C-alpha cells in the first residue's frame, strides 16, 4: 500500500490550490456577502478544465480519475464552498450523460461543457418540493406524444439553476409505478415552457445559485431520454454513488481551511499571559481537528479509488460523504470557538465557514440518508 500522491497528483493539487488561493479566496467574502454567482472564476476554472474534469479525453475533457478529482475538489472546498459547489455540481450534472448517455447524446451535449473559450454549465434536477430524501416520490410528469414527451411539473433547490445550458430532469411516466416509472431527460434551457422560478436566498454556499425550475408543457424529443423509460431512478442513484466522495472532499477542504485559521489565530491570540494554543484545552481541540481532517480525507480517497477500480462502493461512498461533511461541521464549530467572539464576526473567515458547512450535511442525500444507505448495506 502506498499513501503518497504521484507527481502528477501533486501537480494537480498544487495547481488547483494556487487557483483557489489566487482566484477564489480574494473574492469569496464579497461573493458570499452579495450572494452572487462568480461567473468570472467559473470561466477561469473552465480554462483549467476544472469544471469538467471527469469528461474523458475522447469527448474533449482531461479524463481525471475519481481519485484525482477528489484531490482537486478538496482544494476548491478550501477556497470557497459556494464556488466549489457550483463547479462540483456541474461535474455531477455531467455524470448522467457520461454514465447513461448514448454516443449521440454525448457528442451533442458534452462539447458545450468542454468548450473552454465559451464554457456553459449544466444542472441536476431531481429534488421537488414534496420529494426530497424520498426522491422516488417525485411528481413531474412525462407524457408520450408521438416522437416527443411533454413534461409538466417543477423542481426546487437546483444548483446552477437559471445559469445552465441544459438540465437533467427526472420525471415519472407513471407515479403508481414509483421508482420504476422514473425517467430522466436532457432538457435544454431554451425549450419553450421551461422557466426559472424563485432564486433562493441562502444561509451559506452563497456564491452558488440555487433556483426553482418550472416545467409547463415542455416538449422534449424521445431521443433526449437517458437510458430509456423507467431507467431514471438507476441513473440518479449511479450518479449519486459516484458523486458522494467529491462532496465529502469539499467538506475536507473546508475543514482544513477552518483548522488552518484556528491554528494561526490560536498562536497569536494571547490571554492569561500566553498564546491560547498553549492552553491544553485549545491544543487538544487542534489535535482532534487535524485528525478529523485526515481520516475524512482517507475515506474520500478510498471510496474514489474503489470507484476508479470498478468496485462496488455504495457503502464507502456514503461513509466518505457523511464523514467528510460531518467533520466539516465539527471542525468549523471548533474553529469559531477558538476564535471566541471574533469568530462570530463577519470580518473573520470562520464565520463564513460556519454557515457554509451546514449545507454539506444536507445536499446530495442528507447525512441521515447516507447512514440509511450504509446501514441497509450492512444489515441486508
Amino acid at each position, binding site marked *: 500500500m502506498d499513501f503518497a500522491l504521484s*507527481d502528477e497528483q*501533486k*501537480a*494537480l493539487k*498544487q495547481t488547483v490550490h494556487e487557483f483557489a488561493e489566487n482566484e477564489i479566496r480574494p473574492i469569496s467574502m464579497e461573493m458570499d456577502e452579495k450572494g452572487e454567482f462568480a461567473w468570472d472564476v467559473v470561466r477561469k476554472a473552465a480554462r*483549467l*478544465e476544472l469544471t469538467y474534469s471527469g469528461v474523458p479525453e475522447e469527448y474533449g475533457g*482531461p479524463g481525471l480519475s475519481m481519485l484525482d478529482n477528489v484531490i482537486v475538489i478538496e482544494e476548491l472546498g478550501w477556497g470557497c464552498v459556494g464556488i466549489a459547489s457550483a463547479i462540483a455540481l456541474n461535474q455531477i450534472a455531467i455524470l448522467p450523460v457520461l454514465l447513461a448517455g448514448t454516443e449521440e447524446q454525448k457528442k451533442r451535449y458534452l462539447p458545450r461543457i468542454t468548450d473552454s473559450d465559451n464554457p456553459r454549465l449544466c444542472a441536476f434536477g431531481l429534488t421537488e418540493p414534496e420529494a426530497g430524501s424520498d426522491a422516488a416520490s417525485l411528481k413531474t410528469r412525462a407524457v408520450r406524444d408521438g416522437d416527443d414527451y411533454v413534461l409538466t411539473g417543477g423542481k426546487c433547490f437546483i444548483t446552477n439553476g437559471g445559469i445552465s445550458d441544459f438540465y437533467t430532469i427526472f420525471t415519472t411516466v407513471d407515479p403508481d409505478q414509483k421508482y420504476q416509472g422514473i425517467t430522466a431527460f436532457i432538457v435544454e434551457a431554451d425549450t419553450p415552457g421551461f422557466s426559472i422560478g424563485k432564486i433562493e436566498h441562502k444561509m451559506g454556499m452563497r456564491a452558488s445559485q440555487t433556483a426553482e425550475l418550472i416545467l409547463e408543457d415542455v416538449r422534449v424529443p424521445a431521443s433526449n431520454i437517458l437510458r430509456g423509460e423507467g431507467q431514471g431512478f438507476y441513473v440518479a442513484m449511479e450518479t449519486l454513488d459516484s458523486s458522494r466522495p467529491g462532496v465529502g472532499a469539499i467538506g475536507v477542504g473546508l475543514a482544513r481551511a477552518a483548522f488552518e485559521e484556528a491554528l494561526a489565530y490560536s498562536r497569536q491570540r494571547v490571554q492569561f499571559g500566553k498564546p491560547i494554543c498553549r492552553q491544553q484545552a485549545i491544543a487538544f481541540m487542534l489535535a482532534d481537528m487535524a485528525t478529523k481532517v485526515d481520516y475524512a480525507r482517507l475515506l474520500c480517497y478510498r471510496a474514489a479509488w474503489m470507484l476508479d477500480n470498478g468496485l462496488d462502493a455504495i457503502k464507502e461512498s456514503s461513509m466518505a460523504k457523511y464523514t467528510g461533511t460531518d467533520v466539516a461541521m465539527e471542525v468549523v464549530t471548533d474553529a469559531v470557538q477558538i476564535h471566541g467572539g471574533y469568530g462570530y464576526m463577519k470580518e473573520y473567515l470562520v464565520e463564513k465557514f460556519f454557515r457554509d458547512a451546514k449545507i454539506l450535511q444536507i445536499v446530495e442525500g442528507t447525512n441521515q440518508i447516507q447512514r440509511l444507505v450504509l446501514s441497509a448495506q450492512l444489515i441486508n
Partner: protein
Amino acid sequence: MNMVVCVKRVPDTSESEVHIDASGKDIDKSRLSFGINECDNYAVEEAIQIKERLEGNVTVISLGGKDSDEVIRMALAKGGDDAIRLEDDAFAGGDALAVAKALAGAVKGLEYDIVFTGALTDDDGYAAVPVALAELLGVPHATYVKKVEILEPGKKAKVGRELEGGLMEFLEIDMPCVLGIQTGINEPRYASFKGIKQAAKKEIAVKSAADLGLDAADIGEAGSWAVLEQFTPPVVGEMAEILEGEPDETAAKLAGILKEKGLV
C-alpha cells in the same frame, strides 16, 4: 523560434521564520515549502506565449536534484516541449558564475534563439546568472526585462527593461540572446489538467558534468569566484537602537525620538 528557459526550485520563505542551519552556510529548509522561483515562472510564460504566437520549441533546463522535476514538469504542463535537468555532486556550492557555466554547458548543445532566465532568484538574489550565462555563450543579454517584442523571428527583438521609478528603457537586441525576465511582464497561466497529464509522461533528460563536457575543477565550489563563508543574522550596529517593551511603551519611545530629532 527555439527557446530555452532556465528555472530553479527555491524555498518559499515569505511566510515562515528563517533559521540558519548547523553548518552556518545554509538555512534550515526542513519545514519550508518549495516552488518555482517567482521570476522564472514569468520567464516560462513569456517563452510559451511567444511559442504560441510564432511557433517553435521551448526547452526547460534546471540545475538541481530530483526534487526539481516538480518545477520542470509544471513548466512542461504549461506548454514546454523538452526538459533537461543538470545533476552532479560536482555542481554543489557553486556561485552565480559556476551555475552559469553549468547552464551554458547545456545550452551550447541546443539550437536557440532566446534563452530566458528569471532576472534574479528569491533565495540567493545574485541577479548575475543571466549576465554570466550570456558572456559564456558569447551572446548579448538584457536583464530586468518587462517587455519582449519579436521584430524578426530568430533575428531581432525589442525589449523593455524596468529601471528605477518604473521607467522603461527600450533597446533592440540581436538573437541569439539571453533575457533575464522580471515579474509582472505577463500573467502566468495555470497548467491545464490535460497539460499536467501529458507532462507526467514526458522524459526529463538528466545530464552530469561529464555529459556536458565540463571539467569538475571548473564548476561547483571549485569553479566559483565567490565562496560562501557564513550566514549570520544582521548584527545590531552602533547606529541602530532596538526599542524594547510593550507596544505602547515602544510606540511612546519612538514618538519621543522622532520628535527629539525634529523628524515629525
